[in-house]
């Protein structure tokens, strides 16, 4: 399992503990309210609201989850329970770019193990870990529905296929700059 555990990083619920206690911005709350207005029942916006929160805060801290629960009007327990069910929410800080390597059948057949091995060596982290510079978090993923390009991975929102150790190096280089060039892979 790659889902982060839900225990807070640090104890204490007092004041002045950024970024653990960082709250949602008003614009994020407005975006959540916009999502809620799309649905006959506001809870339908919860998954989207959690992404809004996660995109802004980097991960779903207890403080941010409290804010989501207040805006959507649901108990914190429900919001946290729902979030923990889905694998694309993080409860701990992650790197700037999330690398998700598919390890399902088709990618296994086409050598994802080699790609993953190379990534671990190259980044110096194991699956589930973040590089010391905070740039990449390495995770495995289930079938990304792009088996025609197996083996496949996603870096951030970009999909990259037909991976070999050589192409992986080139792809990572594209994310080396602090500002992201957004290479659109197809």
């Amino acid at each position: 399992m790659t889902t982060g555990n839900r225990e807070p990083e640090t104890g204490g619920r007092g004041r002045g503990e950024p970024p653990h206690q960082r709250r949602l911005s008003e614009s994020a709350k407005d975006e959540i309210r916009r999502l809620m207005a799309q649905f006959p029942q506001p809870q339908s916006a919860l998954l989207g609201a959690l992404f809004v929160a996660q995109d802004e805060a980097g991960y779903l801290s207890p403080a941010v989850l409290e804010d989501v629960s207040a805006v959507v009007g649901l108990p914190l327990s429900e919001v946290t329970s729902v979030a923990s069910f889905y694998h694309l929410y993080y409860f701990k800080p992650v790197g700037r770019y999330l690398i998700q390597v598919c390890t399902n059948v088709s990618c296994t057949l086409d050598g994802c193990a080699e790609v993953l091995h190379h990534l671990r060596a190259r980044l110096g982290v194991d699956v589930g870990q973040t590089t010391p510079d905070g740039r990449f978090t390495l995770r495995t993923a289930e079938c990304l529905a792009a088996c025609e390009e197996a083996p496949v991975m996603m870096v951030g929102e970009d999909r990259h296929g037909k991976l070999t150790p050589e192409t992986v190096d080139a792809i990572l280089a594209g994310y080396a700059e602090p500002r992201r060039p957004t290479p659109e892979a197809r």
Partner: protein
Amino acid sequence: MTDAKALINVVIDGRDIRVPQSTTVYHAAKQAGIEIPIFCYHDRMPPLGACRMCLVKVEKMGRLQTSCTLEAADGMVVSTTAPDVHAGQEAMLEYLLVNHPLDCPICDKGGECPLQDQAFRWGPGRSRFVEVKRDFAKPVSLGPVLVLDRERCILCWRCVRFGEIIAGDDALKGFERGFASEINTPFTLPVQSKFIGNTIAICPVGALTAKSYRFIARPWDNRAVSSVCTFCGVGCAVHLDVRGNTITRVRAREQPAVNDIWLCDLGFYGQAYVGRDDRLRRPLVRRDGALVETSWDEAVDVVARQIRTAGGRAGLLGGGRGTNEDAYVLGRFFRTAAGSNHIDHRVDLGPHTASAAVPWGMTMPIADLAAADVIVLAGCDLTEEYPVLWLRIKQAVDRGATIIAITPKRLEIGRFIVHHLVHRYGVGAEVLAALIGGRTGRRRIGQTPGGVRDDALEAASAALMSASRPAVLVGRLALDAPDGVAAVDALLEVCRRLGTSLNVMRGKGNEFGAALAGMLPDHAPGYRRLEEGRGDLESAWGEPVAGAPGLSAPDMLAAAARGDLSLLYVVGADPATAVPDRRRWTAARAALPFLVVQDAFLTETAQAADVVFPALVIAEKSGTVSNVEGRIQRVEAAVQGPGEARNDWEIISLLSERLGRPLAYSGWEEIFDEMRRMIPGLEIDHRITARPPHDGFDARGPTPEARVAPVAGDYPLTLIIGDALFDRGAMTARSPTIADLAGEPWVLLHPDDAAAAGIADGDAVVVESAGASVALRSRVSDAVRRGDVFVPRGFDATPVNKLTDGDPRVMVRIRALAAVAGSTGGT
């Protein structure tokens, strides 16, 4: 729903069974005495079909079926014993046990554990599992009540669904998924619930256990005694489990008319005070300024002499914590031997409040709440005052009922309230009047009195008038408010228009039994007015009964302060902390020649007494009690009291004998029989309610002093005093779980007011009125309106009644106790 459903025939294990349509196969089998094992199914909740334990084979259906989810159909042929059914059940048990720690010898559930029992009966008897079991940190503390052992959990979801479906508090939830699924709270924070004890009761394994019961007893060590919880007034039926002379735990006893099979956590964990070492064991008498232990003989002698001397200038306060029989004997004694009608169980009555103007209790049965279509909560903080009634109302909500709440504080159940009109304290009556058509004539566009929006009011009004099965409840936040009489007047008009009666949600413990038994200054037993019933009393008792109606509780204090009372007899009450205005109590006590207290503990009042009698508590008593809907229920003594403590009525018997007017009863039954002759309809499990509130209600009322307009002066905030379910009173402070749940006394204030005073959530603060102050912990929340602060009563060590000065509207200010960095300091 009473429409009879068509009957259908099913065959289960070769037996023909007739059941109504839409009966599940599980229930059909159960009806025929055929046992099908279950884990996730619970008959108070809809079927879930998760555990897959209740498998059966149905002819013409390919797969095994879960009998808890499958509706029986006419002609269906079912087997619960086919080989593949056994194979399936064995497989399910094997799956459940592979990751279960099998630590039964040290598990509190052992001996009453469905998993244990079913593994014994249906299990494979062996496991092929050689892998490493799932590993969780354990046990995990989830607050003062609950201990969680995730390894034992079989993920039946009962506890989660209890919170979602029954209690509506979503206290426990499932987290993660698949094999990593676990039941927990978010971030393992203390569980937020008033009902979490029920999840322990319905947990089919030892995953949820009570801290208070850990390693205390095995089920076969316990003897279950039937009793009734008398904390809040709902009167939930309980089993007190007793080992030796100790109550090991409290369980709900099924009582369909009251609590069904549920309790609140006060009921579950509030009984620990019974066995405390600081219970009073022997009578105390004041000697050289100090209370010292003495014999019953001497104590009774002293008190009897004082009563004789008082010659009718005696008052009796309390009686709401004992049995009906206690209250009856107390009243009879006082009206005859003591020659006084100064009798009042309403110790916490404010002198000019609506609480003094209406009889207490519900006019409708509790069970009917679940069928209501519109529920009005006027100043009634239901989950803090009568928590188990919320479970009924939650059922009504699930059936589509609309809750309209008019309160000065946003209620915890706010998520379920459609029309929640949170108003400034003291203008609830205007909001209520506006609800029924603006008799104030002051409705403006946008805002109405109390900051309630006009459109919200209009919507609530429309919903209210559409009610066909209304339930209208008024609570203490309205009754004791400065405009309480006007609020009741408006509510009576609401009830008149809707064709219903007002339910007065006021009174705790057995105060309803005390009222029924005649512990009121102007009422004889059976809610008869004294002037009407006096003749009957005299003929029944064969003695003269004092004439004119007596003084109410606040009037007794006033009389005492004036020197007009020679003796005050306090039974099971602590007026020092309970009266609305502590200064009045202090003045009364100072001027009072003699104070007798009959209690289980040396309360603040008892410490000031001249004689203290050690009394038994309800768990030690046999007899009857009455609840908020007037239902008479039996209690049985579960344990023996400490030392020489006695029943209240027994103490009175001693006194009466010493006064030469013996009231010799052989036991509670004889007293109950005497009461039955006097009170028509008095039977176990019957209801006797007070006269309806509109009968004799005077809208000009005991209404008071003109309302003080809020002034932005030295004391800019209006103080609201209300109930918290978990507090630290004489009993609750001595029940460790409840004291922990209560925590430190607190004050709720609006974020704007907090910001203005430089106060953050959780700060130590001082709330001051002219002349007094209390130290509290801040809770910053917009649950109250700006300008209002809420402080719970019931924390005896921090009595909030210090702040009041006799006026129903109390103005206070608040400041941080210690300077907070970055703030400019409080006002």
